[in-house]
């Protein structure tokens, strides 16, 4: 199957029912997208499909047909970080960082929906992303920081 990943057309040998996560990680070596639960409950595997956040562990390849897939690796352009990444870096959000890619991708999607989100909109939208290190308030801070710039 042909996929559009981070602006590049790529062919996958996997069957259409394969999870997008496994293709990204194991076939394309785009390991920035993480496995956290396999049930769409933790958000670590979040990528964008035409700018919308999806859980790649629960997304079959067939569902990506004709859509633009953006992973964490696709945010940085020629060494320049996406404003959301900049904001996360500035706030120095993370501890173990395993949830980072999913948080950043969800934030990009959030700001696509709500350029100036309220605290409630942030918490609603981000509630599907788990951080066991408990960085949530720092993430909210980074999101507000990014919203001011995006």
């Amino acid at each position, binding site marked *: 199957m042909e996929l559009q990943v981070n602006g590049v057309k790529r062919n996958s040998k*996997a069957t259409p029912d*394969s999870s997008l996560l*496994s293709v990204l*990680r*194991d076939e394309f*070596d*785009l*390991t*920035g*997208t*993480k*496995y*956290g*639960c*396999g*049930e769409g*409950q*933790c958000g*670590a595997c979040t990528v964008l499909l035409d700018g919308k956040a999806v859980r790649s562990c629960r997304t079959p390849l067939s569902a990506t047909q004709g859509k633009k897939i953006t*992973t*964490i*690796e696709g*945010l*940085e352009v020629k060494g320049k*970080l996406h404003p959301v*990444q900049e904001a*996360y*870096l500035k706030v*120095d*959000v*993370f*501890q*173990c*960082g*395993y*949830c*980072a*890619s999913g948080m*950043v991708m969800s934030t990009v999607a959030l700001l696509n929906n709500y350029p100036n989100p309220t605290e409630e909109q*942030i*918490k*609603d939208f*981000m*509630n*599907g*992303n*788990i*951080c*066991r*290190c*408990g*960085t*949530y*308030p*720092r*993430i*909210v801070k980074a999101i507000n920081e990014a919203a001011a710039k995006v």
Partner: protein
Amino acid sequence: MNPKKINSEIIQNGSEIVTGTSQAVGINRRQFFKWLGGGLAVAFVWQDTSILAAAEKEILAFKKLPTEQIGAWLHIAEDNTVTVYTGKVEVGQNIRTSLAQIVAEELLVPISAIKMVMGDTDLVPYDAGTFGSRSTPAMGSQLRKTAIAAREALLEMASQTLKKNKSALKLANGKITAPGSTALSYGQIVKGKQLLQTISDNAPAIAVSQWKIAGTSVPKVNGRDFITGRHKYVSDIKIPGMLYGKILRSPTFGATLAAIDVTAAKAMKGVTVVHEGDFVGVAAPDLSMADKAVAAIKAQWKTTNQPSRAEIFAYLKNKASSGQSGGRNGGTTKGDMKAGLAAADKTLQETYLVDYIAHAPMEPRAALAHWENGKLTVWTGTQRPFGVQSDLAEEFKIPEEKVRVIMPDTGSAYGGKHSGEAAVEAARLAKAAQKTVKLTWTRPEEFTWAYFRPAGVIEVNAGVKKDGTLTAWEFHNYNSGGSGIRTPYEVANQQIQYHPSDSPLKQGSYRGLASTANIFALESQMNDLAQLVNQDPLEFRLKNLQEPRLRAVFQQAAEAFNWGKTKPAKDHGFGIAGGTEKGGFTATCAEVAVDRNTGEVKVIRTTTAFECGAIINPEHLDQQILGAIVQGLGGALFEAIDFENGKILNPTFAQYRVPRFKDTPIVQIIQVNRPDLPSAGAGEAPIVAIAPAIRNAIADATGIKLKKLPLVPNGLLVHLKKS
């Protein structure tokens, strides 16, 4: 500032004297400086005069020192790189940053000059593991002394090179300058030299008041790698030609194989099946094939009856021993309990219960195992790389130097990754398949086959006088552990005991260990005792408390929270709790709101004052306190492992609830800096007060005195109806 030089030799380039088969640091069969490329190396050696005396006779101290004697070491290369070697590992506590800060501070180099090599058993000195909040107090202080010794050696060399008195030299930004001379970089100073020096615990440290890099909020040193997805966790590492592993799990704990047929799995192309006793696993070219191969195995298991959650507390109490006393985690007996209770105006006897909970690190266990010429290399996320090295050596009956464990910065642990289950499993598969094997546990595997924070039963009996003086304190913990078991309050008559029991579930360390359970019981009891004598819970605590550091955090948390100055709104409540653990002192105030119709309990805000001596990195300390509060919220409110007859019933995030964005209250953090005191770790202690503070706030709002963790897994309705 003069470190006691135990053994120092400046050896010119090319000398044969320094032939470092440094077994002590695990650099096998390599010449020490050949490997390092010249320069200055300084090793921290635990003080032991007999060993050091012996070492003095040897030109190469490393060679003769047993591994346990070397704590850490650093190397300054001709290209100015400062490389620090430590057995500590990074699991999100940002110790990579704070240890680098300590070295940068003492060496007067920018933080970017420091390269940290951590948790690689071939490269770093032995270390028991990263736990117990020891990295900052123990490793931090060793590295500080090591860096000071390196700085002194650099000054000495520069003084000789520049022919200037040491007092005329100035160190700054990785350079040494003298009036009338051009500046020399550290690399230029050590160029062509091979200096090997050991220092002991005698070396003095720099005054905290002079800190410029330590004590500041240096951002996570490799932070950019994480927000770009570039950092390679173990589960992200690939080696060409590697296979993917998968283990056949038994349906319940304690099951054994009765019959098995692996024919279909074995027939799959490229699949290796390993069946050794009750261990059954496969290695396949990709993960979906590994899944299919395991699914194709026909196995019959013989199960045995196992205890269930419904009976767990009675079970633990029945199986408990009569008690363990002495030691840091043991109990204590003081005065006479009977007399203490007799002297009391009021007594309060209660039983507190604590469920098993899971660490649920976002990165499940993973390992990548590679055999080559009889040597096993395993990448795995563990808090004990040397412990896993030892486990692997034992498993395969090979010497430890034939096992290398490498620990890349890992997706958290919280005390839950002391072990190396995935490492052993991956290595068994790799050995059989004769190829590199990567094994990543699934979330249900992590929830089922890792280990848990222990469940426990805690019985407390206390006596108090009308004026609020505690007269008697009896405290028994069954199964959950001895950490934080002693009361910080002054009580003349005490009997405190930890009773180990026979846990049906695999249990182990957790952030704060048993102190989360013990301080929950202790501070809940203190709250209710205060009420018995009609005293404010803060006043009551302070009346019975002498420890000035704990008093200080109570007072500061209370002040910031406005304790005693405002009244909670209708159906809101305020609670306070505090405690000390692993050298840290913490107090938390919490406000909760109870919905009397739905029974929902919402934590509105928390204020935590925390003190752990001199602060190394304020932002990262903030992270640790915040993390402890948010994680503690889960165990306080709703986290519990449910199990029945050897089976975990809630091994997914859909079933096992962890704190999310919407659960997180306004978290106010007060850092109490004590530059006059040694730095203690901060990863664990701030977790201990959140559960009792919330519990006491619920009691304040409703009068309901909950006695079990988690407090409200199904809301408060069932309790509201009863009351």
